[in-house]
């Protein structure tokens, strides 16, 4: 064997590259996954660049121009304007920002908590496991919206509270998923090897087991992003999420319901925007699932 291996081969062995290529093929061969990825990437880009590309950034807050109220979709205002004369296209783009913020925060809170608890439960077994599982069962017995409603109404109904409300429920799914994965990893050789080497429990959980659970977690997070956004939109719709004049997508749909069907664009465009984003996450998540070849409990 020649000792002159290329740098690339040293970092990533040819066998590994083969594996990645196959996974990529599994993803890229499915048109739906690619479409999903494109949608998500586009929305994220839009949201990040909002201040620069939105046509009327000043319309985001409480801006009024009643002369322009309820303008139908036109070149000037591709999505029309709402009752206060604000450009809907701009507000939808900023609305995407809020949606992504919601998804990011909820998952950012719920996932670490859930995963950690799940690791503890799955790795420890015994009464710790049982106790944590009972706890999750209790939370799972509630339809998410109900508890979110209850919490959201305890405090001021705002986006931040809605985030907290939804996150407080979300961790349970991750706890269950991770617990199942950890429990089955627990008896595997690499774990026992680490234990024999004297690794502490924390080390085993975080550095050994966790990396092997990442694929299903990633898939679930992607799919959940969509569900969280839907839940948030529903809360906003009822009035317990994003408050006007902030451009929450659900809030915008609600504000337009009284003006259907004549001024249909006020409700339809924001609603459709939600649909497209969630669809993107769903298709992307499904593609990831095929790529990593995992089974995720929905």
């Amino acid at each position: 064997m020649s000792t002159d291996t290329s740098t690339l081969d040293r970092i990533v062995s040819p066998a590994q590259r083969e594996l990645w290529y196959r996974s990529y093929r599994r993803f890229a061969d499915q048109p739906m996954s690619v479409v999903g990825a494109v949608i998500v990437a586009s929305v994220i880009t839009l949201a990040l660049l909002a201040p620069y590309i939105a046509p009327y950034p000043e319309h985001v807050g409480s801006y009024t121009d009643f002369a322009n109220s309820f303008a139908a979709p036109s070149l000037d205002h591709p999505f029309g304007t709402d009752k206060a004369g604000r450009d809907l296209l701009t507000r939808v783009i900023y609305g995407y920002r809020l949606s992504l913020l919601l998804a990011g925060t909820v998952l950012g809170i719920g996932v670490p908590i859930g995963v950690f608890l799940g690791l503890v439960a799955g790795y420890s077994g015994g009464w710790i496991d049982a106790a944590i599982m009972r706890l999750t069962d209790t939370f799972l017995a509630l339809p998410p919206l109900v508890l979110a409603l209850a919490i959201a109404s305890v405090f001021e109904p705002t986006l931040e509270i809605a985030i907290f409300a939804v996150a407080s429920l979300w961790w349970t799914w991750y706890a269950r998923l991770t617990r199942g994965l950890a429990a089955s990893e627990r008896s595997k050789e690499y774990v026992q090897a680490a234990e024999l080497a004297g690794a502490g429990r924390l080390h085993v959980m975080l550095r050994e087991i966790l990396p092997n659970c990442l694929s299903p977690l990633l898939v679930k997070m992607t799919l959940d992003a969509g569900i969280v956004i839907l839940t948030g939109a529903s809360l906003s719709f009822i009035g317990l999420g994003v408050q006007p004049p902030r451009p929450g997508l659900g809030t915008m749909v609600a504000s337009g319901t009284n003006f259907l069907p004549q001024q249909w664009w006020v409700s339809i465009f924001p609603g459709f925007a939600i649909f497209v984003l969630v669809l993107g996450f769903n298709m992307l998540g499904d593609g990831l699932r095929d790529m990593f070849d995992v089974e995720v409990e929905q």
Partner: protein
Amino acid sequence: MDQLKRLIPRLSGMTISLLGLSVLVFTISRVLPGNPARMALGARASDEQVARLASEMGLNKPLAAQYLEYISGLLVGDLGLSLQTRNPVLEDIIFKLPATLELITLSLVLMIAIGIPLGVIAAQNRGGLLDNMTRVFAFSAVSVPSFFIAIVLQVIFGFYLDLFPITGRLSLKYSQTITRETGFMLIDTLLAGSVAAHANAWAHLILPALALSFGGMGQIIRITRSSMVDIEGKDFIEASHGFGLPRWLVVYKYSLKNAFIPTLTIIGLLYAWLLGGAFIIEIVFGWPGLAKYGVQSVLTTDVNALVGVTMTIGLMFVLTNFIVDVILDRIDPRIQLAGDAT
């Protein structure tokens, strides 16, 4: 019956969950800011009146004592008084529950009746146009916000096509003639003998039930499709083909029963989802059900009603899961042998 014996551990687990739920909800409700007694009496009531109502409601006792009182009341059916309606919460719930149940049940039926056949068709047509169209539909169905599809259905069928009414359970001209017997409009209209009213009740039900069913329908389509594809590759299906059984029999009897099992497993989850989603639908369609009552009790800090509604929903959820477990136990013999392996 040993079926009962198998299910006892499940039952106890559920009781624990319900208890935990009650603690959780109760605590939340008591932690709500604002003085419920004050809210009930309004701003003009004097402080003594508020204090008197408060002590009547037991709001001054320690939390644990309040909880115990509540639980003991619960077991005998006393859920306290609703602050909004001044009626016993139990009465309110019983009055409003059938509307929600009707809605949810029809949604579930639609989900299954449309979702499973579509899933089977997609699996049979694998890779073909029908399959792809169905999959796109399924994805869309789970991605669309329920309030949005509700609004769209209202606009299309209510406004433009003017086929179905968009609010309420029964048109005004009929509601005078129907007396409430069971609370289920479909049944009550039949009991009153009016076919027109019955048809009208259906017309009112169809749009909200359809809107509510979309999300679950999409999921059922996808699960059915993937389990049918999965089952088709199994040895015993191949063997069935080898024995010369007609193709449609192998698919619709022998494969489908196997594929139905994963679907059944998520029906419990779907039901919970429906209960949550019903809130939105009831609001958009002005449906006078439990969900609307629940939302209002949240907005008006009606603590008793809130706890009552949440417990009812929790109970319904637990019951549905139990029923699903019973059915699963009956149709899948492997579960019987494995016992409760959780």
